[in-house]
């Protein structure tokens, strides 16, 4: 390894974790932290048993139940026997192999990508994997974090390592300052609209620039979370004082002398000044409007004041066909305004936007207002800890007074595995990450947007521009810390 060559953040982490490299084979990459949930792990544990293998480092592994758990009050039984069996299986697997589990009823239960950072398990310079594509979230801390399949989950359980080819690097430079009412979610939706859902394939994003530096950790997590929606398996942000401030004092963060040593090492992680990237794109944050999707993949997004594209103007036949199909599924008309489109459900939550700052924004928008009569609004905290904090701050009172449902923690309607789902034909404004056909329930139609846009739309009963909400200036500081 040439130590003189300037390196990017991801290259430094990569080099630091390569265990072995055989001619013609992928690198053997050491894994610092393995996150496990109920959906993508059962077959991996079965594989271990069949091969007579064990979990090599249960103390570098942590599990939670999030995808199929109901968000109804915790005392109620599971209505779905399959979901119940899956969560029980996770419990049995963790007990058998000695893996710590933050299951239902545990104060640290929550969406896997919310609890990792919250517990201080997610730290700069680490390699983190999980059988979940939104593992990219943890890249906000300057960790190389990516989703893996169940075969790979089994490999990591057995060896605490993975076989990986070195990814290409992709600089996403976001300069300028966000305007009031425009947030981190709008940055990432704008990026994906620009490069497309396959734009980052084979690459790892590094988000840089003035607008990124100005974001809080939770806003950075929102951006890194959706890297996968732009095709990149991982997306990172260099650690800085914002990162260290967030981490300091968290349960699993280093403390005492170890903390000082860690920070010193973390300060060496950012990309070298003269490091180069394989690909690069630039976005001007000051020119961004709130974004919203109109179609059936996260790349089909537009500024909220613009109109639904016309397939006739598509650049080629397959793009035209894709757009026609998306508009047919969404039952939207080419050229129509997206503002004013009636909405049935508003969902605030998920590993993208289910953190306390997201709930504070929603509460600020809902304070003294009421959800439109035609709208069902669900607010689902990303973790039990987020729920407790929101209740300490009285946010749940604001939500309830506004007529919104205040639920228990989980993935909920983002993936609609737990009974929280749209009915066929319903429209939702969702703060989640995917608007694929049927993602939020068979036949359901999803508009992806920020928590502010979602809350404004809940009040209006139609897709609404949060900048027009009177009093928005009070929460206008969302571009800053």
């Amino acid at each position, binding site marked *: 390894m040439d130590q003189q060559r300037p390196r990017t953040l991801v290259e430094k982490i990569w080099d630091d974790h390569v*265990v*072995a490299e055989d001619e*013609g*084979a*992928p690198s*053997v990459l*050491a894994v610092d*932290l393995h996150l496990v949930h109920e*959906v*993508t792990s*059962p*077959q991996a544990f*079965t594989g271990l048993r069949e091969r007579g293998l064990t979990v090599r480092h*249960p103390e*570098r*592994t942590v599990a939670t139940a999030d*995808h*199929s758990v109901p968000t109804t009050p915790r005392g109620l039984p599971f209505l779905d026997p*399959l*979901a119940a*069996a*899956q969560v029980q*299986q996770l419990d049995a697997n963790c007990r058998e192999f000695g*893996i*710590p589990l933050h299951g239902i009823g545990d*104060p*640290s239960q929550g969406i896997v990508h919310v609890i990792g950072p919250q*517990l201080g*398990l997610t*730290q700069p310079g*680490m390699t983190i994997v999980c059988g979940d*594509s939104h593992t990219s979230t943890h890249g906000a801390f300057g960790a190389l974090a990516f*989703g893996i*399949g169940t*075969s*790979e989950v089994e490999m990591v359980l*057995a*060896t*605490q*390592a993975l*076989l990986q080819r070195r990814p290409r690097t992709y600089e996403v430079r976001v300069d300028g300052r966000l305007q009031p009412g425009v947030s981190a979610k709008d940055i990432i939706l704008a990026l994906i609209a620009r490069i497309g*859902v396959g734009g980052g*394939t*084979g690459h790892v994003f590094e988000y840089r620039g003035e607008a990124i530096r100005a974001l809080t950790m939770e806003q950075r997590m929102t951006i890194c979370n959706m890297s*996968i929606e732009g095709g990149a398996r991982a997306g990172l942000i260099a650690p800085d004082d914002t990162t260290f401030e967030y981490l300091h004092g*968290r*349960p*699993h963060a280093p403390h005492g002398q170890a903390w000082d040593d860690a920070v010193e090492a973390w300060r060496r992680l950012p990309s070298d000044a003269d490091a180069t990237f394989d690909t690069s794109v630039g976005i001007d944050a000051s020119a961004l409007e709130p974004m919203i999707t109109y179609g059936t993949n996260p790349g089909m997004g537009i500024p909220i004041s613009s109109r639904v594209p016309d397939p006739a103007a598509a650049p080629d036949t*397959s793009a035209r*066909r*894709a757009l026609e199909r998306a508009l047919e599924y969404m039952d939207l008309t080419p050229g129509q305004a997206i503002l004013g489109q009636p909405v049935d459900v508003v969902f605030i939550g998920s590993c993208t936007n289910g*953190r306390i700052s997201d709930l504070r924004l929603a509460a600020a928008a809902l304070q003294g207002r009421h959800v439109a009569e035609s709208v069902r609004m669900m607010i689902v905290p990303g973790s039990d*800890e987020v729920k*407790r*904090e929101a209740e300490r701050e009285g946010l749940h009172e604001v939500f309830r007074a506004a007529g919104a449902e205040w639920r228990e923690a989980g993935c909920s309607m983002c993936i609609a595995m737990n009974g929280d789902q749209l009915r066929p034909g319903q429209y939702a404004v969702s703060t989640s990450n*995917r608007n*694929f056909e*049927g*993602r939020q329930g*068979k036949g359901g139609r999803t508009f992806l947007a920020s928590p502010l846009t979602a809350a404004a739309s809940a009040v209006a009963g139609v897709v609404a521009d949060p900048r027009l909400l009177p009093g928005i200036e009070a929460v206008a500081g969302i571009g800053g810390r």
Partner: protein
Amino acid sequence: MPEPYRSFSSKVVPLKAENVDTDQIVPARYLKITDKAGLAEVLFRDWRFDEQGCFLDPLFVLDKPGMAGRNILLVGANFGTGSSREHAPWALAAWGFKAVISTGYADIFRSNALKNGVLPISVDPETHAHLFALVDDDPDSELRIDLAEGGILLPDGTTIGFDVDTFAKLMLLRGTDEIGYLVEKLPAIEAWEATHPARVDTRSEARATGQV
């Protein structure tokens, strides 16, 4: 342990859709299983059946006459975008697909497919269009896929070359799991760990939280 991947000939199932996401390949509500049973039935479920479980009209390509038993899926760009669910290639394999041909794949899907005997073949856009035209002209056109040679043999005798990751190719041809290779690397992994202290201990008593 998977079977060694052998060359084969098959007619083609053409699916003219780009960016087909894993929620279409296997909808999330079918991910509550703890084994791999029943996945063939839920492959492309919501593109095949209505809410009552009746076939949609018109039939989805998979259910059209003559499609059963075909082992090659020809599909639009960026196949397998979205989630990491390995249920997607499990379902494709359970249906009988041994190869997918597209211009490209989402990274996680590609990795998962290679581990399950579903060969993700990438061809350039021109070749891709040519293959669709071939199947449009004669829906019963047969292709021969030879992984060892890295070629697709067309009915007219011409061959289209394709590249597969050399290591994944070796694993497929031998019918070997990557996990065996990785387990053999344990001494190197242990040596690395000896000089790189654990970053976290998930079993340590978490100190009082009280923060989010």
